[in-house]
């Protein structure tokens, strides 16, 4: 019986103007916007590839260990076409240095601050707005319409149970809505696949599949909401108005209001305060370094501190030739000063991470408030699956932090705790002695020869790959919330319909 009702309802739905309109709109919007978004992704991918290539070229030029300060870049997420999330808003590079721990960089490189007058547009915006609206439009007269036309009492005059009618309607609605959703996804995937860029891996396909699944749960939740209003009201006009107002509150009011409320409930300290503390710590570094140096070496005994620098990799300089005093002094002081720099980097990070924590707490609060609206849960779930949510970004920052520690350890092991001359210069002790004898001659000769770059084959690589199972695990709460919304609204409409007057 359920099947019969569902089939009838489904066929009726297919013939309606709203269904045709919604499906065409979904298709057209996806066909117009996805190519634009894909082109945008390609641009970002190109910038990313250029950056990585430049970084590698610089790495090949490194002559001394001190100059190893590579930058790691966050690859743009292909699925940002489907759900842009925070992809463009957050930093996409981290410089690996001895003296600082990579921190969250608010603006990505090359970002135009003035572009923040626009909201973000992605395929999920189209899906969530158009499909949720369509779900409500299809659901609003499913019960109240039949009530008005008088067909509902005819159905129930037969031996059809009320729950069968309701389940049939739900089934029909969901099946109807699957059609535009599927069309939108197919159009989106086709456009992405046809444009010349990185192919989708199986994990990408799985992610898209899960997004599709999330979309289905989401539209079914929205349909259930429409169904509830349809059961509540006696006339379809009223259920439509109720449904639409609910929708406007969900789409427009809650997302903006919750973010705003979060900034009021948990206001941030001005960044300047943290900056002040950091500046204070930085100003301590030099005096502390001098004090430590005085404790370890007798600085007065080194008279001749002459050296000549040449530009090296990553915009740094390195010591090409120096006096014996310089050579010996730095071998003794580096094991003291470099750990000190690392120590201060940790201290500064502590201050900055305090600020970061308050930033993230605010965001967390805003998210939790937004979850009243099923549309936000859906949006959040898709951005997690697309790898463009805040957690993916944090993963990048953590990865950069871990990589920085690896690099520091690598340099430490290679240079015997920074005491080896290869840490800061390409000269050996013989070169230095030669220098002492005839500074000019050696220098003239050096201008013609080039130092060989360091062999960095065993340099640890930074691998940034989002784990699929991890993403799925993070998306579960939001998906569960959506399923809960389904159950809740369906049971509410069930109760209303069971007790309602069908005349």
């Amino acid at each position, binding site marked *: 019986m359920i099947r019969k009702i569902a089939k009838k309802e489904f066929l009726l739905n297919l013939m309606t*103007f*709203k269904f045709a*309109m919604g499906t065409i*709109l979904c298709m057209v*919007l996806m066909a117009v*916007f996805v190519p*634009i*978004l894909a*082109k*945008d992704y390609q*641009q970002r991918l190109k910038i990313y590839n250029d950056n990585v290539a430049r970084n590698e070229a610089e790495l090949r030029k490194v002559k001394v260990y001190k100059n190893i300060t590579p930058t790691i870049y966050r690859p743009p997420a292909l699925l940002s076409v489907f759900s842009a999330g*925070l992809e463009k*808003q*957050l930093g996409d590079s981290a410089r690996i240095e001895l003296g600082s721990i990579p921190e*969250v960089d*608010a*603006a990505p*490189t*090359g970002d*135009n*601050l*003035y*572009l*923040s*007058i*626009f*909201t*973000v*547009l992605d395929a999920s*915006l*189209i899906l969530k*707005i158009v499909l949720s609206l369509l779900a409500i*439009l299809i659901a609003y*007269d499913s019960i109240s319409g039949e009530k008005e036309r008088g067909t509902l009492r005819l159905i129930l005059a037969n031996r059809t149970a009320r729950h069968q009618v309701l389940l049939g309607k739900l089934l029909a609605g969901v099946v109807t809505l699957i059609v535009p959703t599927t069309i939108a996804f197919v159009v989106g995937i086709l456009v992405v696949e046809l444009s010349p860029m990185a192919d989708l891996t199986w994990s990408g396909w799985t992610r898209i599949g899960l997004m599709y699944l999330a979309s289905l749960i989401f539209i079914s939740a929205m349909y259930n909401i429409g169904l509830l209003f349809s059961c509540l009201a006696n006339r*379809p006009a*009223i259920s*439509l*108005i*109720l449904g639409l*107002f609910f929708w*406007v*509150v969900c*789409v*427009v*009011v809650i*997302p*903006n*209001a919750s973010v*705003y409320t*979060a*900034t009021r409930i948990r*206001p*941030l300290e*001005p*960044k*300047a305060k943290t900056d002040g503390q950091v500046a204070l710590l930085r100003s301590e570094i030099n005096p502390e370094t001098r004090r430590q140096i005085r404790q370890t070496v007798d600085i007065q005994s080194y008279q001749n501190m002459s050296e000549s620098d040449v530009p090296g990799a990553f915009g740094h300089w390195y010591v090409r030739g120096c006096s014996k005093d310089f050579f010996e002094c730095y071998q003794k002081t580096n094991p003291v000063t470099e750990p000190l720099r690392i120590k201060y980097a940790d201290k500064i990070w502590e201050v900055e991470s305090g600020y970061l924590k308050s*930033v*993230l707490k*605010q*965001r967390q609060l805003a998210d939790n408030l937004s979850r009243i609206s099923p549309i936000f849960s859906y949006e959040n779930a898709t951005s997690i699956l697309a790898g463009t949510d805040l957690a993916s970004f944090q993963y990048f920052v953590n990865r950069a932090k871990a990589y920085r520690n690896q690099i520091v350890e690598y340099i430490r092991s290679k240079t015997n705790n920074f005491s080896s001359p290869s840490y800061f210069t390409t000269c050996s002790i013989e070169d230095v002695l030669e220098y002492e004898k005839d500074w000019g001659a050696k220098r003239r000769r050096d201008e013609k020869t080039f130092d060989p770059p360091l062999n960095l084959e065993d340099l640890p690589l930074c691998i940034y790959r989002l784990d699929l199972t991890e993403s799925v695990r993070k998306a579960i709460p939001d998906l569960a919330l959506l399923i809960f919304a389904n159950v809740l609204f369906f049971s509410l409409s069930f109760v209303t319909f069971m007790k309602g007057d069908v005349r």
Partner: protein
Amino acid sequence: MTRRVMFKEILENLLSLRFVLSLVLVICLFAASGFVFVGKFAEQSADYWAETNRNLSSLREECSNALYRAAFYRQTIWREPKLLSLCAEGFEKSLPNCFRSDAFASDLPQVKGRGNFALPHFSDIDWVFIISTVLSFVALVLTYDSMSGEKEAGTLRLMLANTIPRYKVLLGKYFGSMFTLAIPLIAGLLVSLIIVISSKHVAIDAAAWLKIFAVTILSLLYLSIFVFLGMFVSSRSAHSSNCMVLLLVVWVVLVILLPGGGRIFAEISSQSPTQVELERRLDEVGKEIWDNSEKFGKNAGNMSSDPNDPDNNPPARARLKTALTNATNQVRDDHHSRLLAQALTGRNLTCISPVAIYARASEAVAGTGINRCADIYRKVREYQAALKEYVRSKDLEDPASLHLVNPELSTARSWRAISHNPVDFDTVPKFQERDLALGQSLKLAIWDIGLLLLFNLVFFAAAFVSFLRYDVR
């Protein structure tokens, strides 16, 4: 007769569920916007005055030390929170709010303060947001069945069986809907204003009242577009549910999708000028000037702390440094105007939608938004020139100075290129941002107002023609 149709329409609307729902929703939103604004304004004002006073007291200290120190003091100029951001906030919270400058050069504008970069971009619940999204939606909900609904109920043919011309029915319905719509609008505005006035942090002066009035008129003009649109669609179709679907589609596209596309339009139409590019340009300019340093005079490249050292050539050095700073300033200005142009192009492209036009016009009237930020940057540059001129004139009064006002701190200090005498803090020019008068603001918005009128006219004509040819049976 028009009046009678109008009254009937108003009374019918007033008793409907949709009107009650809209009234409640709109008043709640306006009340929220009032409370939100009061809290935000108090916090921002406190921050602003703390920072500004800190800046001025440091400037005062530098003035009492020496003229050259005042000239080289990097002032931090903050954007003042504005009362009228209550009407149109214009995404100011994510736009640059901090401008740094001394007498010779300024940094590019920055975003500082309490902003949270991890939050999604959101629009503040200001009046423009409520009116442009929620009230436009209400306008459509009120009008979607104005013709087709009466046709379905069979009352339209009864009405037209009398000696009433169709255009009178149309006008009656239009004014009826506009009056109904004005009720939540005015009630909401009043609630919001009462909340704002009753707080102790805010005082609204006469000029601001006038601007608030102008924004209200703009809002009515904007809502009228949607009323005409609703009536147009309503007299194109026989079924009111189809009208609703069509109107919702139009609403989603106009209000949500098109304004959201601005960023994409901007990024596709022109490439963002990047920081790397800026630094490369700065390097090139600097290198070129340093390489040709002899052009500015013999030994222009040299600088040792002894002014009488024969290797030094102070006038040439000053010319070199001035040329260098002018060139880098030029590069920064170019970069800034490219950033701005990119955003403005995107915005102009979104102006197919009345929402963007309305937002732009209200921002112009309220004096907020992106144009204000660009304007402050320009004023900071003007202020910087004025300060330099002031330093030059004060410097002439000191016989011990070399009278070489140039952007190199070390020569100013060791050679006395700029006077070391203290100056009176009160005579030093200070940065001030003046509000435009209503007339000037309206002049800025004149194109947008024209466009809004045009939209009204087009949809009116469409509704008129469609209704004249409407089959009322």
